[in-house]
């Protein structure tokens, strides 16, 4: 009974995450297109922000696949610092004093 219900959990997790990498690659390509041909500066900054957030989620997936949990701190730091670029460019576009 118990032997029949044994599920190879590692194989399922790895397969699902490997399939889930495909939407991430498609999203990265779309962000690259928007960065290359964004008409205004705001489009480009927003595309870079979204790319950073998606890359942090993708780093989490890679952390599970590569089986090295120490690496997960990089994604948190990337999320927190990619937001600062947004603030700098917004301050520049509003012509205010940076840092004040």
């Amino acid at each position, binding site marked *: 009974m118990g032997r029949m219900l044994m599920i190879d959990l590692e194989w399922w997790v*790895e397969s699902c995450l*490997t399939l889930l990498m495909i939407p991430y690659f498609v999203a990265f390509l779309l962000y*690259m297109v928007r*960065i*290359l041909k964004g008409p205004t*500066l705001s489009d*480009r*900054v927003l595309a*870079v922000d979204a*790319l*950073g957030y998606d*890359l942090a989620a993708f*780093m989490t997936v*890679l952390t599970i*696949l*590569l089986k*090295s949990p*120490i*690496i997960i*701190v*990089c994604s948190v*730091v*990337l999320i927190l*610092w*990619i937001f*600062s*670029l947004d603030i*700098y*460019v917004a*301050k*520049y576009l509003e012509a205010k004093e*940076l840092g004040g």
Partner: protein
Amino acid sequence: MDYVDLAFVLMGSVALLSVAFTFLAIRTRDLMNAVIFSSVQSIAYALIYFLLMAPDIVLVYIAVSVGIYPLILILLIKKVGRLEVTG
């Protein structure tokens, strides 16, 4: 399945992408767009360091190259002007 090959393929493709964005950052005449392209190149290098299993380098590199370096460049662009004048 071994994911080391996938990591190397990702590293190679991201390195090619960073070369393309570095070329764009050099060639563009709008300096704010140059800052944006340079930050994309920085994010690509951060992913390469991440795949090389060096989280301490990633922590410092993201803080410097996505946080402090665009701040200094944007402060400079506020003083100098946004469009690069050739000639």
